[in-house]
């Protein structure tokens, strides 16, 4: 076995050779062409850090090859030096001094001092680059700024945060002329300050860990980077907390670096604690109001989920499902992260309350962790009480503007619920997976989807398809879960769905162009209005002649629904705070009521209109009387109310949704564009309505009755399918998908979805329609037969009383009519 102290240095040659080649090439081109003499600043900076790492590796691995610090010194030239001289002379001075320190460290074999020097140089290079990027951005030189932006650190990506691209975005926008220099500077600063604060935190933790493990080089470097990054943040800190606090903090970080370089681990750990306390609540790049609302929403959702998950995972003081406890731990951690981001504002508002909140959340986390690690398991009720108390106190502290629902928060919730769904699938917990799928869908359906409908209804439809029974040639999540598909089998749909959701996020996150807003507003009004027109046209088609009076209640009901939709929406928002939370359930209830009304109408139609009219049309002499009777019976109070209800529900059912969609568009594109779109939509709807009613009136009466009946049945069929789907969406109906491929448009326009429940309900509705038709026919014929028998009996009695037979012809008439009706219907059926 080779001892560590005798490691050969030969294998380092590849890296050194690579750096040497670059340096040699640079030297060659410097001599050959002064115009191309210098490396770009980022390349020089990379050379410095790489060379120092090589020097460090030489020392760590006892490699005698050396020479790397000299290479680093040479690299501090050209654009890098000039840029630093112009924008950050202090950082340049630090780099120069520390390069000398590194040289001395190599000479004396002091790996700790070298690590400290490298850490300080790395941070100083980034500080200088930060200053330079800001200067160049302010000077409207985005291309040059982007080159300097290559000398930067990045925020560590986690489950909840991705590497930021705001600075890049800002410089691209500046280059494209979409952003002015001042706004670009703000955005670049925000991204970089956020990054360096985050990195300061991770380096501080690393320093603490290294002190605990007694790894002196690692400790010295982490502490040096921490102190260096503090220099980037100190100005912002002073602005926020004043010069006294800044001086105090500067001293802490200075001591931290010094103690680390001296190897005083106890002092380092003390300094880490002091720094943590000093930075409590400090946010270098303050969050925007939207970001705060997003974090607040995440906090509330996460803390609510903790007892839910915990409750599922424990019973009788024991952990029954470790999976659920881990989920609870993860949500508590998520809540803690969100609270940390908000603590700056909260501390300002209520220092004691905030500290107590943070402390209690910490206690909750500790209890969860203990349970997860096999220790004491608290009762579910206890955890529920703790989490509930934290949630309630936080809710009381959060300002109202944080409580408003935001798209970003909704998208977070959709993604978190999908994460949970996948974890549950992997654990074979399909019931839980289904609950999570429905949660994700609900967050989408009455959150971002409303807006997306206004921007890109096609994408919205595809997302919905992937949540349910499939789209984009992939099976839907509902189908996959019902089939107990594995995580791997679920992944293609999940990835595609997430990609579509990202696309939706991007689309809904931007403003709509006036053209898009006009087109989409017109389409929304037209689309939602079409169904109402069909129902109303179908119902009123038969109301001619004496029954024409019956049209009025239908029209009045329809008109009444328009203000009712708007008022209902406003009431929901005012009274309940959020329509979205209850929207889907309201839709389900209204849908069920609408089906009920439609069933009654259909039955009434068959009984009172269809058969009666049919028969009456064959009894020419009695037709007017029959019609009048039918009209008379139909104008009873109950019927009028029913007709009001028909008109009302036909419009109300679509009305609130239309208002929501239009509101989303109005927020994104302004009232003017939306108003134009609505006008176009109404005009188009008017044309279609006019043509529909006109054609209807030109139809032969008998044919019109057929068309009317079919249309009502079709509307019922569609409404039943869509309502059952909504009931499934709110979890009030079970879901049993069927493995058949049904195009998305059939769901939208005919309410046909591949699930047992929707299809069975639709088949039942068809059975009802046909049954109602036959029952009405049977009933009417029976009535006719009874009437005929009564008539014949009366005639027979009359004949017996008056044997001369003056009224003999009358006796044959009902019989002939009945035969005629029967024959005619048989032909029509064929």
């Amino acid at each position, binding site marked *: 076995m080779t001892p560590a102290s005798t490691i050969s240095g030969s*294998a380092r040659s590849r890296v050194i050779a690579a750096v040497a080649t670059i340096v040699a090439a640079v030297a060659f081109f410097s001599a050959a062409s002064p115009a191309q003499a210098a490396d770009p600043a980022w390349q020089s900076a*990379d050379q410095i850090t790489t060379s120092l790492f090589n020097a460090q590796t030489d020392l760590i691995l006892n490699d005698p090859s050396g020479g790397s610090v000299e290479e680093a010194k040479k690299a501090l030239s050209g654009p890098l030096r000039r840029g630093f001289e112009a924008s950050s002379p202090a950082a340049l001075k630090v780099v120069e001094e520390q390069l000398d320190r590194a040289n001395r460290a190599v000479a004396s074999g002091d790996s700790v001092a070298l690590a400290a020097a490298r850490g300080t140089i790395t941070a100083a290079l980034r500080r200088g680059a930060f200053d330079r990027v800001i200067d160049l951005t302010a000077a409207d030189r985005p291309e040059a700024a982007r080159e300097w932006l290559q000398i930067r650190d990045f925020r560590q990506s986690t489950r909840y945060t991705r590497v930021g691209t705001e600075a890049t975005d800002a410089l691209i926008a500046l280059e494209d002329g979409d952003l002015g220099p001042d706004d670009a500077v703000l955005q670049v600063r925000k991204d970089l300050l956020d990054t360096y604060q985050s990195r300061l935190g991770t380096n501080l933790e690393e320093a603490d860990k290294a002190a605990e493990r007694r790894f002196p080089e690692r400790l010295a470097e982490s502490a040096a980077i921490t102190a260096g990054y503090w220099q980037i943040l100190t100005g912002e800190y002073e602005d926020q907390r004043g010069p006294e606090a800044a001086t105090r903090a500067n001293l802490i970080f200075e001591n931290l670096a010094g103690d680390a370089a001296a190897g005083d681990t106890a002092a380092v750990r003390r300094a880490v604690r002091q720094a943590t306390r000093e930075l409590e609540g400090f946010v270098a790049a303050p969050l925007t109001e939207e970001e705060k609302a997003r974090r607040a929403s995440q906090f509330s959702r996460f803390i609510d989920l903790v007892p839910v998950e915990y409750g599922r995972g424990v019973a009788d003081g024991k952990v029954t499902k470790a999976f659920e406890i881990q989920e609870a731990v993860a949500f508590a951690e998520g809540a803690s992260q969100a609270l940390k981001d908000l603590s700056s504002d909260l501390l300002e508002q209520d220092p004691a309350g905030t500290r107590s909140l943070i402390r209690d959340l910490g206690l909750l986390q500790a209890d969860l962790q203990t349970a997860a690690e096999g220790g004491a398991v608290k009762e579910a009720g206890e955890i529920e009480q703790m989490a509930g108390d934290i949630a309630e106190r936080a809710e009381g502290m959060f300002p109202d503007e944080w409580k408003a629902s935001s798209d970003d928060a909704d998208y977070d919730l959709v993604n978190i619920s999908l994460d949970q769904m996948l974890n549950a699938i992997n654990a*074979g917990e399909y019931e839980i997976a289904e609950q999570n799928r429905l949660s994700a869908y609900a967050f989408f359906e009455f959150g971002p989807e409303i807006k997306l409908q206004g921007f890109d209804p096609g994408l919205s439809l595809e997302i919905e398809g992937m949540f349910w029974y499939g789209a984009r040639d992939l099976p839907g999540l509902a189908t996959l879960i019902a089939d107990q598909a594995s*995580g791997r089998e679920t992944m293609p749909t999940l990835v595609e769905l997430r990609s579509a959701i990202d696309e939706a996020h991007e689309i809904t996150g931007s403003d709509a162009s006036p053209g898009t807003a006009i087109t989409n507003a017109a389409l929304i009004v037209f*689309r939602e209005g079409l169904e109402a027109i069909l129902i109303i046209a179908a119902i009123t088609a038969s109301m001619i002649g004496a029954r024409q009076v019956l049209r009025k209640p239908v029209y009045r009901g329809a008109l009444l629904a328009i203000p009712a939709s708007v008022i209902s929406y406003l009431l929901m928002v005012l009274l309940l705070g959020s329509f979205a939370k209850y929207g889907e359930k309201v839709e389900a209830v209204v849908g069920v009521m609408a089906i009920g009304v439609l069933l009654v109408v259909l039955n009434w139609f068959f009984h009172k209109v269809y058969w009666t009219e049919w028969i009456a049309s064959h009894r020419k002499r009695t037709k007017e009387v029959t019609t009048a009777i039918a009209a008379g019976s139909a104008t009873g109070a109950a019927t009028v109310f029913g007709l009001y209800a028909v008109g009302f529900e036909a419009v109300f059912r679509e009305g609130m949704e239309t208002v929501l969609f239009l509101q989303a568009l109005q927020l994104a594109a302004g009232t003017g564009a939306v108003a134009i779109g609505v006008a176009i939509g109404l005009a188009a709807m008017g044309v*279609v309505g006019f043509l529909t009613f006109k054609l209807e009136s030109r139809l032969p009466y008998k044919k019109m009755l057929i*068309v009317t009946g079919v249309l009502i049945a079709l509307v019922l069929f569609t409404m039943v399918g869509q309502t059952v789907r909504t009931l499934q969406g709110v979890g009030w109906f079970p879901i049993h998908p069927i493995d058949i491929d049904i195009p998305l448009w059939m769901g939208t326009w005919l309410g046909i979805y591949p699930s047992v429940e929707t299809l069975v309900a639709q088949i039942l509705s068809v059975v009802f329609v046909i049954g109602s038709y036959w029952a009405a026919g049977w009933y009417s014929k029976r009535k006719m037969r009874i009437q005929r028998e009564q008539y014949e009996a009366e005639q027979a009695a009359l004949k017996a009383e008056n044997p001369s037979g003056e009224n003999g012809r009358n006796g044959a008439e009902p019989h002939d009519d009945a035969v005629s009706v029967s024959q005619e219907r048989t032909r029509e059926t064929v």
Partner: protein
Amino acid sequence: MIRKFPRPILLLIAVPAIAAAFIAGCGSDDSSSDSDQPDAGLTAVKSYLTEHTADLVAQTDTLKTAGNAYYDLAKANDFDYEKMLKNDGEAVNAALTDAKNAFIKANPAYEEMEGIVAGIPRTAQYDTDIDAGSDASDPESAVSFNLTLPNGEVMKQPGNLFFLIETALYGTNEDLTAEGVKPDVDGDGKVSFGEGLPEANAFKASVDEINKQAKDLDKDAQEIVITPSDAFTSITVMTPTMSEYFEQWKLSSFVAGEGSQQEEGFVATSRLSDIADILTGIDFTYAEIEPQIAEKNANQAEQTAAELGNLLSTAEDLRDREAAGEKFTAKQADQLGAEMQAQAERIAGQVTQAAKDLDIEIQEG
């Protein structure tokens, strides 16, 4: 008999129907049309992937054969492992040697493509199941399969397959090895580090499952179209996992010493070797997207290529040193791991910026 509808009836149905079709057409953004275009995607990355999946299938075929032979021997001896060693010692040694040899080849075959498999969300679950996933105690990263053993027992979400197989074969996980038997597999009278006698039921189920998963992965790899978005995603997802690998290396027998290791896995092959293999795959993937990045931002492309090359050469350098017999300390592993992690995170950050610049989506896993 089909009755002819009078024109007004047809019109009455047609007007709303045409209107409906019109608005359906207007409202729908037919985004599927893009994907309908035949697109071979990044062909070099795909070829790299399919070569490796085919290799993995071949190695796991051998592993399965050896594992099943071992199971048959155990069964023939009524799962009395002492009796088995006594009666069929040579056959047992041969079967386990074959299994170890296949494992040693299967592992790099997978690791070299891990950067791609794990980095593309559509195939990432294979990585969890084969190489990276934990057991049920950590639901965020747990494997997606249960193992049903020949004796009817079910191991729910037992952990990744390489871990199960390696720790059983090399005897570092007592839950997966035969109980109460001295595993002197080679019959030399002593038990050396790495000698293990797997519990035959679990071992058979594990080798069968890895072979099945390898075949499934191979099939999916043949069908998959690797897009630039996949390549960018895989680099940003996979690159910043260096510190975790170095931590595993630090705790494994290669650094901590045989018998002192806290990490049960990475016995057959050093984690350092995996790191170099993974970076090889990432480097290969980057080479295919580099021209695209360079077209938009030559500086960025150059910087990332240089840093990735540097990272890879450092990893290869360390691997070669270790293979040549050098022994690293925990302190060295920690320091090197921290620096390589920092480099890897910078690369991931740079690739994220480049993706933004090119308007390429980094996918959510």
